[in-house]
């Protein structure tokens, strides 16, 4: 019996929640539940996915409203107690707004919504989320889909220095699709238990949908926590 209990947060406007649920339940055969935004607790879930989409219509700023939702307060509590949190796309924006991760995601420099596969360099294989890349050390680059209009990572220079010196930039774009600072595609928090990334691993867990490079990230979490 797996010790990992996944929760997938659902906001009004989330649209990658079912992709994450499907991958975890049917591809990786994990214990997974949805967590509605009005719930006050993540319950017994020890890994929470904050999925992509347009939470609360992305009104005001991406992630700004979701950050104050009931469920997110408990996700912050879980993260501060060492629980694992993965924010994907809109989820990454929400984690930045909530202060779990530094910086912010601003409009793509192209002003266009980008939707395509991008090549990513794995910069740190010693994390909860990337351990499987270390096992298969041949894998230094992966291809994952991106789909966003606000994926341009920004932070001040002292934060960037901190991220770089602590090896907290986990994924970097080989061919930057959005103007992101230092080609950043994904970062972790200081404790190493919270990852935010713009690309969508949950959309790339089976070859039938165009690739399985995303599965390494979920398999890393599952193996690490077991």
């Amino acid at each position, binding site marked *: 019996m797996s010790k990992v209990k996944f929760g997938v947060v659902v906001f009004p406007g989330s649209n990658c929640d079912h992709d994450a649920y499907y991958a975890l339940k049917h591809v990786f055969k994990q214990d997974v539940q949805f967590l509605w935004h009005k719930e006050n607790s993540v319950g017994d879930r020890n890994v929470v996915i904050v999925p992509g989409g347009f939470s609360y219509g992305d009104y*005001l700023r991406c992630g*700004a409203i979701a950050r104050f939702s009931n469920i997110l307060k408990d996700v912050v509590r879980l993260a501060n107690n060492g629980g694992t949190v993965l924010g994907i796309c809109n989820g990454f924006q929400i984690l930045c707004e909530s202060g779990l991760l530094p910086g*912010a995601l*601003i409009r793509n*420099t192209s002003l266009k919504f980008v939707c395509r596969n991008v090549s990513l360099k794995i910069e740190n294989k010693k994390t909860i989320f990337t351990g499987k890349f270390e096992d298969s050390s041949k894998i230094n680059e992966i291809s994952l889909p991106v789909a966003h209009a606000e994926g341009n990572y*920004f*932070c001040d220079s002292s934060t960037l220095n901190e991220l770089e010196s602590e090896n907290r930039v986990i994924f970097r774009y080989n061919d930057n699709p959005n103007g992101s600072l230092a080609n950043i595609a994904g970062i972790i928090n200081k404790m190493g238990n919270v990852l935010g990334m713009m690309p969508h691993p949950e959309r790339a867990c089976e070859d039938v949908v165009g690739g399985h490079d995303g599965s390494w990230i979920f398999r890393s979490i599952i193996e690490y926590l077991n």
Partner: protein
Amino acid sequence: MYSAKIKVTLRKSILDPQGKIVEHSLVSLGYKNIKNTRIGKYIELNLDVPNEDEAKKITDEVCKKLLSNPVMEDYEFEISGGR
């Protein structure tokens, strides 16, 4: 009742691609002397509070908390009205 008029803009150090594109368009319309176009948000709200100081305090608080993100945005506001 007081009224707050709030402007939220991208910080000067941050490239504003939207402003840039609008400026390109203005220049191509022949307005060649237009420079430094920046696009922001305008928010209006009313406050049912007893005095102007309280209106300022609350407006500042909500700007910090929700209406702007200090990582990328600056805000300014004007309070008007009163009973």
